[in-house]
């Protein structure tokens, strides 16, 4: 069939233009901006002055940025292990043929269809409430002293717990779809050969889920590095060090806030570039550690 190159070009032109304008241009501008002293995000390049690596130097020596990175790493590693482990556990249980699997699947996924703002408000104002919160009602029923779940010591972990609660259902569904793609006869054969459920999980499910696990870790990494809303909800009015994450640091730096008139879009751009590099590094390491499964089924 004769190819009409003009028509092909016309068809892909809108996509290419959209990609160039909404993705490539902002990325290039952000990278360039990170090497300049820029106050306002949208100021013209005439107002920029070359700053070399000073923005990176400023950011990397900032105690607040380092605190935000530490918080982000904790979310990524600790939150990731707990979320993905819980999701996998629930996926395995719900695909094992238990009664009411559909109900539990819907119930566990439900937090994902509720607005994160509403969910966070529920956790902050009800579950963690010091005077009449669910957790402190349980604690006092056990005869113990009430706990300040949102005090400076516990606030980060309270935020992470609430975030994990809202995330498990999403990853569980991904795992369920992966497990359901594994042929049932593999498990039947393994059962006939005397393999226990644990053996089946470690010798069949896990190896065949490598690709899915890699995908979920990548998704989680993106979620952890772009963590924003929950931190905003848990530290209203002004940012707190206990819940700050790099995107909040970037946001405060670029937009300022109540009583803040100092802005530094150049340093904000440097934070954005650093976060992108982190995601790329994580993805590269993941590709090295978790090769795609060469098994066919």
């Amino acid at each position, binding site marked *: 069939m004769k190819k*009409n190159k003009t*028509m092909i070009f*016309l*068809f892909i*032109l*809108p996509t290419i233009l*959209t990609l160039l304008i909404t993705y490539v241009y902002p990325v290039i501008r952000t990278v360039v901006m990170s090497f300049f002293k820029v106050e*306002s*995000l*949208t*100021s*013209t390049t005439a107002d920029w002055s070359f700053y070399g690596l000073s923005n990176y130097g400023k950011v990397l020596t*900032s*105690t*607040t*940025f380092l*605190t935000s990175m530490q918080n982000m790493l904790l979310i990524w590693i600790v939150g990731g292990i707990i979320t993905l482990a819980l999701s996998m556990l629930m996926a395995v249980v719900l695909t094992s043929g238990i009664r009411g699997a559909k109900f539990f699947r819907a119930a566990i996924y439900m937090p994902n269809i509720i607005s994160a703002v509403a969910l966070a408000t529920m956790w*902050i*104002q009800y579950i*963690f*409430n*010091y*005077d009449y919160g669910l957790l402190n009602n349980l604690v006092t029923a056990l005869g113990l002293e009430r706990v*300040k779940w*949102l*005090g*400076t*010591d516990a606030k980060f972990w309270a935020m992470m717990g609430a975030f994990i609660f809202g995330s498990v259902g999403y990853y569980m569904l991904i795992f369920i779809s992966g497990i359901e793609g594994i042929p049932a006869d593999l498990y039947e054969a393994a059962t006939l050969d005397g393999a226990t459920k644990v053996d089946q999980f470690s010798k069949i499910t896990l190896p065949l889920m490598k690709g899915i696990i890699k995908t979920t870790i990548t998704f989680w990494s993106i979620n952890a590095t772009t963590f924003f809303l929950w931190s905003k909800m848990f*530290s*209203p*009015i*002004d*940012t*707190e*060090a*206990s819940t*700050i994450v790099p995107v909040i*640091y970037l946001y*405060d*730096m670029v*937009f*300022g*806030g*109540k*009583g*803040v*008139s*100092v*802005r*530094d879009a150049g340093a904000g751009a440097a934070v954005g570039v650093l976060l992108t590099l982190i995601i790329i590094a994580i993805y590269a390491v993941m590709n090295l550690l978790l090769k795609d499964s060469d098994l066919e089924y």
Partner: protein
Amino acid sequence: MKKIIALLLALVMVLGLAACGGTETTETTEAAAGTEAAAGTEAAAGTEAAAAANYDGVELTMWSMWSSGEPQATVIEEAAAAFGEATGATVNVEFKGRELNQILTASLEAGEKIDIFEDDQSRISQVYVDYTADLTEMAEAAGYVGYPALNDRVVELAGYLNSIVEQPQVGGIFYDKDAFAAAGIESEPTTWAEFLEVCQQLKDAGIAPLALDTAYTNFTFYYHLVRHLGEDGVKELALNGGWSDSEGAVAAAQEIADLVSAGYLVEGAPDEYPSSQNKIGMGQAAMIVLANYVTAEVNSTMGVEINWGLFNYPAVDGGADNTCIYGGANSLAVSSYSENQQAAFDFIMFLTTGEWDQKMADTAAQIPADPSNVCNSLPGAIETLSAGENLMSWCDSINANPDLMSSFKTLTAELYEGKITTGADFCAAMDALY
């Protein structure tokens, strides 16, 4: 034929993409002249000059920080309609919500059609100053006075009067007068020692003296710190460190640590906003250090009518600034490139003076922008703000070093939690941030 179909498909795709972008999602209220909505006729024109002008064919665009449906938004809509009816102008009010400040800079830089915009006075004076009109002459011609201290600060920061106060705020210690009476307290404390005595009296009467939410620990401690060091002194420390070497900083933190250890905070404080401030509405706590909006918030959240009183933050021994009072405002500015600056200014006057201002103050339970009006929600607030010659900002001196903000907030929370028990420890923790 195939080519025609292909071209049509390509066209549909392009139009589809075009349709996806550019749609204004904010709610717009078009208050054209003669609109029936002008029915807000109960409130007459704010200033005679503004109402007397003829602006037939003039179209003003106002970007508001409120969301449609809020009391402030309702009054602005009605005032815009009434202004249109009186002058012939059309005022398009776009309610952008609290996140307005994220798009304002970009929009002003892009020269978007904005005649009037609304934001925190301090930000207008510093962040948007390059895009604001000089209102000095228009204000003089209109005989505008407002609150001199707030206007002076604008001139000091911006170099000229570039905004008009719309919602003034005053800060200090807000208290439940009935709780004070129940504890036998007859006069408001003026010094830190008297304040501690009041706290003890309240505690003895079974009422927790002070409510405090984590959201405001930085502001509460900032007030105390400014008493000892003054805002310039705090700024010096914020920018250069040396907290441990500052006797004032150590003393300020120590006094707060002592206040906490004496048990003068309500149980659970510092709590998550607004849990602790609501305890005043429950009769469990008597005082809070904040701005005037706390009174409306507590009343409306708890469904009560607290008998509120206000006194200035107590003076401390050897304090560098024992008189300043927190004063701030949401203000209105006219864009420097507006083609109708006089009409825009007149609408601002129409909204912020006279009966429309009174209506705004009553509807939104706030302090009137026009001192000749009456503050029904907090009697005495106008007098306090008018008399204030020495205004304190909302943590501006700390925020001069943005890198310090979040850590300062968390450390002040730890101080009020009782986790940091000495002034020296607090200052050492601050110094460790540099």
